Structures are given as structure tokens and as C-alpha cells.
């Protein structure tokens, strides 16, 4: 059984992004980039499934420019067997990526597609569900536990107010929540070895899919700031200030 994991290269989640002076986009020149954290959970889970003897190969794929080689090498250093870059100059959006990823799934005949539940740049959380729909595959989003049993995946999902457990026939698409696992630490020798592994390159344009962006970015704004607050010196002062607000009963 093959597992395919898609990895996105995003601004490191510890970095507070700046907006370009003309407000056209965020300024990511020279900013530290990393594997999308949820995608790291997906890679980790794929590796654990393989280590349990339930998968034969873990393939990672990324979409965009050759700058994505670093996140693919990170995945290889974690233990993935192979890496593919689907090269594209287009501003890729969820629906376009889902279409490209579908082509890779079919090419690789992957039985399980593991993805992060959302990327921490766009915060959209759409791609896995879109991919599942395009392939007409079962889906389980926000997974906190995955158990494979023959041709079935038993997945527990984190939903508002609790959890839900589903049984999915493979092939299927599963998206990872943070609680799924703790991704392994990448050791330096593994990173050095990963540098020597080849990365296969496919051309997005040769796949002949409509991946034009459907959403046009008009402007990027700072979120409205909250009015500056005040410091209070005691519990008594705090309570009296709060009581002065209409509708607050304390």
C-alpha cells in the first residue's frame, strides 16, 4: 500500500508576517519558511503506518517552485521514501492544488492520502475535502487517531464539542489535526542524506488542468487594532471598572 502526503511550504508559524508598504500582499522575502505544521503531522502518521508494516511506501509531493525542495527534503529526512515536485508558476489556490494532487494520486495509485487539516498561511482548510470530492473518495478531516484494519481506516475526528469516529473504505483522504501525533525530530545526518536523494519534477502545465486562481487578492490590511486598554492595580478596581460597563453583571 502506498501513502501519499502533500506538503506545503509556509512562513514559519513563529514569524509574525509583515505587509508590503503598498498593501498588495504580505512580504515574505527573506522570511524563514517551514513545512506547514499540520503537514508534518501527516508525514509523521504516514511513517508510523509504514513502520507498523501496513504500508510499503511513503511518497511526499509539493506544489510550486523549486524553493519547495527544502520542505520535500525535510520530509525525506523524516523518513519519506520519495519526493515529487509539481512545478508551477501559477498562484496556486486550494481548488487548483486539489486538481493537481488528484493527478498525482492517480499516477501513483496511492491508497491513502494524508494531508494537514489546514495551512497556517491561508487558514482555509479546504484542500483535503476538495481532493476527496474530485476523486469521489471517502474523507475524514481533523483526524486525531487513525487505525488501519485491512482495507478500512477507523478515524477519530475532532469536532466542535467532542469527537466523531468514522470507518472509511480505502482509498481515502484523511486530514491531520495537531493531536494526531508528535512529529519526530529530524537528525542532522538524516538531513545530510536527504540532500542526496533525487526529487522528481513534474510540470503542472503539462497536466492540462484548469488551475487558474478563482480568488483575486485585492488588498492586504492590518486587522483593526483593539483600543488600548488600561492597567488596574487591584481586584477591587478591576471589578468596579467592569461593573461600570452596561450589561455586565458581576
Amino acid at each position, binding site marked *: 500500500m502506498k501513502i501519499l502526503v502533500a506538503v506545503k511550504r509556509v512562513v514559519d508559524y513563529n514569524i509574525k508576517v509583515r505587509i508590503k508598504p503598498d498593501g498588495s500582499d504580505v512580504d515574505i522575502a527573506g522570511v524563514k519558511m517551514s513545512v506547514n505544521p499540520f503537514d508534518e503531522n501527516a508525514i509523521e502518521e504516514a511513517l508510523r503506518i509504514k513502520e507498523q508494516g501496513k504500508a510499503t511506501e511513503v511518497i511526499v509531493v509539493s506544489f510550486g517552485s523549486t524553493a519547495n525542495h527544502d520542505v520535500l527534503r525535510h520530509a525525506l529526512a523524516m523518513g519519506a521514501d520519495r519526493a515529487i515536485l509539481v512545478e508551477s508558476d501559477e498562484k496556486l489556490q486550494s481548488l487548483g492544488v486539489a486538481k493537481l494532487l488528484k493527478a498525482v494520486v492517480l499516477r501513483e495509485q496511492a491508497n491513502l492520502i494524508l494531508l494537514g487539516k489546514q495551512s497556517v498561511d491561508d487558514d482555509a482548510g*479546504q484542500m483535503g475535502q476538495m481532493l476527496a470530492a474530485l476523486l469521489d473518495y471517502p474523507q475524514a478531516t481533523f483526524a486525531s487517531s487513525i487505525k488501519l484494519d485491512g482495507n478500512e481506516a*477507523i478515524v477519530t475526528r475532532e469536532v466542535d*464539542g467532542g469527537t*466523531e469516529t468514522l470507518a472509511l473504505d480505502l482509498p481515502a483522504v484523511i486530514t491531520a489535526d495537531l493531536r494526531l501525533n508528535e512529529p519526530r525530530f529530524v537528525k542532522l545526518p538524516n538531513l545530510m542524506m536527504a540532500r542526496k536523494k533525487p526529487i522528481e519534477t513534474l510540470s503542472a502545465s503539462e497536466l492540462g488542468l484548469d488551475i487558474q486562481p478563482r*480568488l483575486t487578492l*485585492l488588498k*492586504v490590511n492590518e486587522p483593526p487594532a483593539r483600543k488600548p486598554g488600561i492597567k488596574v492595580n487591584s*481586584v477591587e478596581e478591576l471589578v468596579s471598572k467592569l461593573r461600570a460597563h452596561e450589561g*455586565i453583571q458581576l
Partner: protein
Amino acid sequence: MKTLILAEHNGKELSPAVQQAVTAAQFWQAPIDLLIAGGNETILQKAASIQGVTRVIHANAAHLAHPLAEDVANLIVSLANDYQVILAAHSSYSRNILPRVGALLDVAMISDALTIQANNIYTRSCYAGNVHNVIQSIDKTQLLTIHSSNFAAATLGASTEIINIDAPAAFTRTRWVSETHNLSHRPALSSAKIVISGGRSLGSAEKFEEVLSPLAAKLGAALGATRAAVDAGYAPNDIQVGQTGVVVAPELYFAIGVSGAVQHTYGMKDSKIVVAINQDPDAPIFQVADYGLVADLFEVVPKLTAEVNSRN
């Protein structure tokens, strides 16, 4: 053309955010239909009472008792021809279903829209709420989830017509197995008027409960936690407030022993009044707080609890 709202419910009750979705849908000034997949009489009656709705469409079938994304998406797609706009309140329910609809209709989806403007322009937050993107959709069908706390709730009191329809055949390759509910005597986090959140400074699960529970009980408040507190095992995952957890916008929010990472502030910065209690005067949480108290939480929270009047 018309607007379709996917109305969320949990099998027992209609989600209160449906009323906010109705207000958002009124932007298009077109007839609004509410779609309810599965559900019971209580849910239907509540839906039919929301002002501003043209029709309540009820799809019932055995396989919708625990609705799967696959089945609800197919149901929406079977109706989609009549609608120019398809929307829902942003939640784990709609986030699971609507992207699937987008792919089947070949349209992009706008997740968690903060504002809706003319010409299919929306604002949405990216990078954990650090920037707001203004985007324009070029698709014929507008598909979106809305950030409920940015929209007023439509009022009740109507008695709208309820229409029953058949659902498409079940998607049998996914099967519902079970669910767990986090039972709590406290109000639901996402709709509570007062939320009290604790951070890693609480130090242990025992202290988290011991320090925060009496205050929550007295105020009738919901308890929340930061991701750091959840990861440290002080609080259950489902009460995590933030980018990867629940987004709340109560009347009053207490951040207790919370540093104020962007991950967390994303989930609470729409609160009306924010109170921060933290020993570190430089903690970033004070930048989003209306009232900051620099103090040892173990000392002042019990004092605060004694000072406030009980709701019971």
C-alpha cells in the same frame, strides 16, 4: 436567483449561528432557503421561526441521522442549480462539507468571511489573524462560510413553510461509527456570555480546575484554555481557544495566566471586554486587554471569585 444556507444542527438542536448566517445571507437581497440535513422536529421548528427565511428545506433519510460530509455535499450539489450563493456559519460541520461542494461545482470557497461586500468581495483573516485579505471571487456561484460573531443574529418569531425533499442515495464507503460529547455543566464555549481561559501559568490540571472552576461557577462562565495549557495536559482539547481551536466572542473574556500568543489571540480578540491577569507585565496579552492586572494569579483569582456576586 436564491441563497442557500446549510443549517447546522447536532441532531437535537439547531446551531444558534444559523441566525447569524441568515443575517449574512440577507446581503444578497435574494430569497433565502435553509437546508436541514437530518434533524428532528425541534430543529425544524426553530429553523422555521427565524425571520427573513423564505423556505426551510428538510432532507430526511436514514443515512442522514449522522450526516457525513459525502452525503450532505451530494445533497447540496443536487440543489445547487437554483442558487447563486451557498453559505454556512464557519464551524467544524461546515468546514467538513462545503469544500467538498466547491470541488463538485468547480468553484472556489471563501472560508470564514469576516465581511461581505458588493461585487463578490470579501475580507478574511490569514496568518492566524495577523493580516486581513480583501479578495474577490470570479466564480458564478458564491460558496462561503461566515465568521458568525461578525454578524448579528436574525430574530425569531416567524413561521416559515417547511418543505420535505428526498436525499440522494447514501455514500456507502464511509460509515459513521460513534461519537463522544464532552459533557459539561458549564455553558457551551462558543456561545457563552463570559469565558474564563487559563494558560500554562496555571501549572497543572489540578490547579487549572481548582483556581478557575469556582470563578466560572459563580459567573456562569465557560472555561477555555490556551494551546500550551492543552498540550501540557491541564485542560481537554475541545476547550482550546485559538487558531487551531474554538473561536469565541463573548461579552467578557478573562485571560488568566495567558501569555497572548497570536495563535490564542486569534480565537478571542473579538470579545467585547478582555481582562488579562498575568504576572509578566510585558506579556503580549496586555496589548489586547481592556483591563490588565499584573499580579500573581493564584493570589488574585480567589480574591476576584470572592468579590463577584454569584449568578445562582
